Every structure is written in C-alpha cells, then in structure tokens.
C-alpha cells in the first residue's frame, strides 16, 4: 500500500489545481492543427492526437455532383464508386485496408467527394502510396464502368422506392430551375445509362488533380513525418488545377411552387423548401443553423410545439445543410390526410413568427447551448473530425470548422430575424406533397 505521506501528496496535488473552467473548451482547436500546401497544389491538414494509436485519413475533392457536365448527372458519383475497383497495381484500396483490419468509406455530395479510411496508426504510412495511386493514378475500363453502372442503377431504384428519397429528388428539382443542385447526386436512370468510360476518364482527369484536393489526417501521427510522406507519395503527381467552376446562377424565386403527387401511402408527406444562404455568408449560415435548432432540436422545439403537441402531425423535422452555393432550408412533416391544411398553415405560421419576432436573450442562449452540444457530439471521434475539417475545406476553408462555434456564438437575435426575413419569405417557398392515392388529382397546383 502506498505510504500515507505519498497518498496525502497525491491528494494535495489533485486538489491544489484550479477547479475546471465553467465555459466549455473548443470543439476543434485550431492551435492543434497544422497544414501545408505541396508545390503541386495538394493541401495537407493534420490534427495530431497522440493519445490512442489509431488514425483516420481523409481525401476530399472540391468537386461533386454540381460539376457533372450537362446531361451527365451522376458522373461524379460513378467515378467515386469506381475508385474501389482494382487499380493498376491490381488490388483495390478497400481490400488492402480491410486486410489491415481498417475500414474505408466514400461519399459524393453536391459540392465534394470524400474518401475516409481508418487503421491502427502503425499502418497509416504504408497506405499513403496506395491512397495516392487511387486518387491520382486510377485507370478505368469499359467493363468496370458498365458493372458499376448496374450497381448505381439499383441504388437509384431503391432510393426512388422510398417516399422520402423520392420526395427529396422532387423538391430539389422544383426549387431550382437553373443551378445544378436541381439534379440528384446519383443521377437518373436515363443519364447514368448513357455514361461511358470516356466520360469517366475525362471527369477524372479534370477533377482528380492535386490543386483540387486535400489530404487530411486525425490521430496518432507526427505532422512532420506526414508532411514528408505526403511530399514523397503525393508530391510526384503533376501540378494541376481543376477547371474553373462555370455554374448557372439560380435566379431569385419570387412566388410559391407547388407539386402534389398521389401515392399509395397511408399518410400525407409534406416538404417545404426555401432558398438558403451559402458559405460565402458565414454569419447567415450560422443564423440559419440557429433557426434550424429552434425549429427542430429538442422536445420544446417550435415545430414540435406547433405540430405534434397540437395533434397536427405525427412527425416533423427541419433540415439545413451549409453548401458552397445557396442551398435549401427544409421543413418536412408527416400528417394524417385530414390534418394536411391545418398542418401546412401551422408550418407557415411558425416561419412567419421567425420573421416577425426576435428571440429573447434567454431563448438565444439556450439555442446556442443546443448548437454547441450538437457540434461537440458531432466531432467526438477521429472520423467525425476528419469529416468536419474535410467538409469545410471543400466548400471554404478547414479553419471555419474551428471558428464555427465562435461565429455562431456571435450571432444576434436581430441577425436571425434579418436572415428569416431575407430567406424565409411568405411567397418564396417550394412545397411538394405526397397525398394518399385518391381519384386523379396529379399535377401542379396554382
């Protein structure tokens, strides 16, 4: 047993330190992150965490479905799928990572494409050459392209078979008339069927280039070593930037758009959408996040109080994703058919209230606490942190992932009201309604 004097000393050492700070610490601390840009344009971002011997690596390309050429929607997504096919060296990245006991994930969004893998930290250096070859040195054959198209067509079919998947596609297609956000990320059966290996190669050569790419790492590795290995394995690829973005801007929506679809469903599904700010206006996206929090998060949320608690909806939720270009703010509700009209009125009334009144200091403080908790929990794993850093690096700069809470914390009630007035206008919404099938009533409502 430890001598009494040492036990006392340990006790004193523990109790002598100051009590923990009342304010929470940073969720993503910029001081713990280092970055370098290689001569060929690749950016390397590292958050070194020496506490546990695991690493998550990520690669993000600042190209996504929005960069699909006209008539070829789904191309970015198809290329991402093909990255798991055997490369020149004959073994795919996913098989190699799996043999090391790790896991790989990839995803395509409207704005970017991301690859994430996790392994024990001792294996990470060995994976870098394979990762570099997968990202910048892949080759594609017509057979691989056709095989992958079959898988994607099945994915599209599965998504369309779910009411929410189908609803999502319709809402974006109706809300946007010119900007490529109107196309589904997976593409449509028609566009995907027409894609060729030449399309794949051209997209890959244009977008999978060092100047359009960031390599991220969170976990047990030394930044200096990672920078050196990155130069060695990624630096040999020629400097190249992606083509300039040449997207059609979305004109301002000045009147409601409505579509009603009869379906063999039991309840009515309603989704409202308003055009929302993009990342270029950081304060506005933070204000919109607070609006989303007020509407959706917690048992006392505004939507819950106006809908579920009054028996008008079975379920309701709000949604907002910060995007590179102005996206959408969404409100979705599942209601019994006889409650459709009062539910729709209640939703518009909640939104009207956001335009007409400001949150009190107490309400705003509570929303910010909810937002903090949400962000903290959304960044507790190494993979989450790679995801957040990659997300913001793709559409803006990774540094905003670290500054996000401070920016949101500075938003005032006045700013929230301004954002509501600017974006959540009375006649500026799009609404798509899935009604239980009745005698023919399909088509757009005035």
């Amino acid at each position, binding site marked *: 047993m430890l001598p009494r004097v040492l036990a006392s000393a340990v006790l004193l050492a523990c109790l002598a*330190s100051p009590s923990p700070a009342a304010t929470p610490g940073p969720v993503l601390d910029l001081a713990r992150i280092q970055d370098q840009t290689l001569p060929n344009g690749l950016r390397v971002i590292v958050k070194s965490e020496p506490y546990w011997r695991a690493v998550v690596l990520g690669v993000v390309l600042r190209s996504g479905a929005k960069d699909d050429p006209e008539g070829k929607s789904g191309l970015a997504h198809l290329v991402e799928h093909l990255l798991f096919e055997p490369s020149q060296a004959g073994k795919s990245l996913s098989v190699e990572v799996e043999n090391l006991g790790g896991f790989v994930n990839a995803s395509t969004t409207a704005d970017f494409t991301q690859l994430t893998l996790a392994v024990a930290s001792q294996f990470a250096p060995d994976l870098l050459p394979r990762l570099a070859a997968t990202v910048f040195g892949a080759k594609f054959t017509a057979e691989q392209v056709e095989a992958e198209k079959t898988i994607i067509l099945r994915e599209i079919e599965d998504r369309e078979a779910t009411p929410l998947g189908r609803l999502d596609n319709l809402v974006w297609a109706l809300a946007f008339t010119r900007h490529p956000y109107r196309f589904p990320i997976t593409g449509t059966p028609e566009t995907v069927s027409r894609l060729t290996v030449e399309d794949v190669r051209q997209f890959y050569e244009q977008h999978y280039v060092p100047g359009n790419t960031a390599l991220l790492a969170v976990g047990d590795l030394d930044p200096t070593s990672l920078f050196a290995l990155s130069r060695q394995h990624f630096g040999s690829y020629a400097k190249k930037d992606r083509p300039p973005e040449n997207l059609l801007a979305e004109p301002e929506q000045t009147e409601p758009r409505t579509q009603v679809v009869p379906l063999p469903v039991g309840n009515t599904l309603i989704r409202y959408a308003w055009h929302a700010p993009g990342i270029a206006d950081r304060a506005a996206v933070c204000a919109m996040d607070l609006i989303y929090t007020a509407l959706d998060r917690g048992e006392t949320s505004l939507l819950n109080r106006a809908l579920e608690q009054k028996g008008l909806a079975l379920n309701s939720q709000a949604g907002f994703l910060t995007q590179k270009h102005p996206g959408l703010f969404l409100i979705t509700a599942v209601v019994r058919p006889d409650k459709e009209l009062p539910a729709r009125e209640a939703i518009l009334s909640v939104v009207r209230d956001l335009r007409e009144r400001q949150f009190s200091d107490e309400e705003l403080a509570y929303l910010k606490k909810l937002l903090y908790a949400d962000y903290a929990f959304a960044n507790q794993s190494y993979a989450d942190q790679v995801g957040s850093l990659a997300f913001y690096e793709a559409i803006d700069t990774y540094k905003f992932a670290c500054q996000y809470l401070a920016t949101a914390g500075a938003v005032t009630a006045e700013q929230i009201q301004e954002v509501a007035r600017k974006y959540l206008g009375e006649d500026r919404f799009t609404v798509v309604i899935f009604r239980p099938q009745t005698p023919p009533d399909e088509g757009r409502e005035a």
Partner: protein
Amino acid sequence: MPDTYRLVFAGGARNHPTCWLAVFLLLLLGTSTLAQPVTRVRPPLVQLSNGLKVLGYEDRSTSLVGVFLALKVSAQAEGEELRGARDMIQEAFRFRLEQELRGDPRYLDLTAALLVGRGLSLGTEWDYLSVLSLCPRSELRPLLQVMGKVIFREPLTPEALAAARRALGRQWLTYQSNPAEATFYLFRRALLGPDVGVQPVFADPQRLDSFSPAALEAFRAQYFVAANALLVLAGPDQPEQLVAEAVEAMVSAPRRPAPTGWPPHFSLQPGSVQIATSPFLRRGEAVAASLMVGFRLPPAGDEDYPAALVLFEMLTGKQGLLLSNEKLREALALPAGGCPPGVPSPLQVLGPLASAVPYLAVHVQTTPEQVGVVHAALRGAFGDLARAAGDPGAVQRAKRRALSAQALAGLDQSGRARRLGEWALFAPGWQNLESLPRRIQAVKTEDLARVIKRCLAREYVGLQMPE
C-alpha cells in the same frame, strides 16, 4: 490527512514500493518510459476509501469526457428467483438519471446532449452492468454527482420501478421476435452448461411483476455498491484532475463491502448442441433456421489470448476463411467477398468480447433443409484454420487485423473509456494491455496450433428450427 484513496495496480507492481514511487513521479512529470500499447501512457487507477476504483485517462482530442461506470454484478448473481432483476434495476436507473439530468439549469449542456439524442447509454451485459456517458468537461462533476446519487445512495422508487417495467415490457416483445437472440441464448447454454448464470438477460413481464420491492432493494444493496464498481474517465484534462472530480462527486457514496463471486466461474463443458423451436422463424410460407456454432476461447489474461485473437481474424473479413470457403458461400448463396454494402448478410461472426468466458461464434440464418450442409461447411472453414496457421501470408494478415481491432475500438472518446474499463475488469494487470500488441506480433504457428487444439476440440451449437 484522511486516507481518501490509494493507487492500485493489480498484479506485480503492488509488491514493489519503489516501483510505485517511480510511477507516481513519472505521472507527475507527465512522461512515461513504460511500454506503450494502444495508449501512450499508463493511466493511474485509484481506489477511493469507499472502495470505488477510478481510472483517469488524459485525452485532449475532443472537448468531451467519456465516462464508463461498470458494476461487477453478473447474471449468475441473480439466481433463479431474481432472473432479470439487474436489467430492471438498470432501467430504473435510466429513468432516474434522465429525470435528474433533464430540466436542471446546472446540467444544461448535458441536458442539451440528451435532447440531441446522445450522452447516456445503460447496458446489461452477461457479466456486468455499464453506464456509458459523454459530457462536456465542464459538466463532468454534476454528471458524476447525479450518477453517485442515483446508483449508490437513493432507494429504488416505485415510480422508477414502474417505468422500468413498462420499458422492459416493450423490449421483451422485441426480444421475442428476434430469433437470433434466442439462438444466442441456446449457444450460451451449450457453451457454459446449465448454470443459473446462463439465463437470458431479459425477463418476461410476468416474472418482473413477481419481484417484491424488498427483494430488489436487498439485491441492489448487496451488489450496487461503490466497492463493486469501476469508473473510467477519459477526457481533456490531466488524469489527476479527472480523478479529483470523481473524488468530489463519489466519495460520499456509502462504504459497503464488495460481494464475492466475481468474475463468474463456468466449468469447461463438453461440446454440445442445444435445440429449440420458434414460431418467429415461420412467416407465412417462408421458413428459416437460426444456427450458431462456436468455441470457448482463453480469457484475456491467459498467455494464449493473443493467439486466439489472431485465429479469430483468420476467419473474418472478405479474405478470411469463412467467406473464402466455397461450400459455405454456396450453401448460403453468398457472392465472393460477401454481400455488397447495404445488403444484410445471413452470416455474422461474434467475439471475442470482454467477458469472463470469451468465445468465438458464427451465426447463420438459413433454411431448415440446409442446416446440415451449412454446419458441415462451417466445420470445413474451422478445419481450414490448421492449414492457414502455417501460411505466413494469412497469419500476417490476421495479426494486422488483430492489431487494428485493438486500435479502432477507441476511435471515439466513449469507446476509449469503455475499452480501458473492459481491460481493467477482465485482464488483471495493466501489463496485459501494454504488452498485447507485442504479443500479437510474436504469435507463432505453434501457438496457433496449440490454441486450435485447446479450444476447437469442443464445439458448441445453438439451433432454432421453425415451430
């Protein structure tokens, strides 16, 4: 100065005071020259005067603290009369913890965490109970105070017990309709024998209604005591600061003696097959059978444990022996490499989990006519282990997977707290965790052969057929 707690390491260091002093000084200096496992520093394990053991682990990768509280009360301790009592008490705790944590402005961040759907998880494992939580660093002390009050001090209230009965009634329905759960229970009975500790974790609502409040309270008073618990705190602060929070919050929990009889002991059983029928394996014209086949493995502190981990990994993954076995794939209509993402697989591999008796098991859902064919194919795959143990490529692959499995169990803060806790519970002595990666890498063909002979000679089977 009160002897509030003392440093504890199970195993060799206990008998060497100079070693203790060195560790203590190294801790204060913030450096360590000890061998490094998945963690880089040996976290201190402290015992409070009421017997609660606390492990503080510094991890500044996130702003949150992972909190893992384990109570060393196994299903065996329930006996036949109180089967299901642990789960009921856990549910009562859940109700009270949520009641305490919601709506109190002191806990607003944690309340917010609960409202966003995260922050508190209670588990009833075969060998222990767990409370797993995540909270912002600033909320750690209030959280621990609430946990200490609910778990160690206040009596079980009728309201909490009623809420527990309702919650467990709903869970019972889910359990009943999931054939895999019942098959797992059959496998466990084959593995461990007709022991009272082999009963399902869940109890039916009628049984729960038969528990008297006095009996539950007596059970609780015996087992849910600080001296029977382990608390792990992994978070963005020095270990001493984390431990100090536990001291502040938990030292007032009553000092009661720890019960004996943990970890539960199960005699080695001859191989056997346990069979039952289930109405849930028949849905209209469709029928299925649920088969689980497995083996007992050495415990975490055993010298053969690293080799057992390697053997497990030789079976798993797209290039493992199970999915490489053509006969098995054919019997289950599986493509090469297994089912594509998003498609549920009829084959699951389980183990080795942290428990008194680790095991390796394969669960398969197939048709009644195919049970014999599938079982034979599984035996073939297990038989391939002996051949593969002599294949350097296969062994190397399995070792790497075993090393990654240790690391990836701690990709998030709550996972790290849990992992450290499981090791402290089941692997006596920190040196077992420290040396595990080295011992995995050192596994030889003869070690694998020895474990195959030791463990795979006895097969345990649970089988459910449609009623």
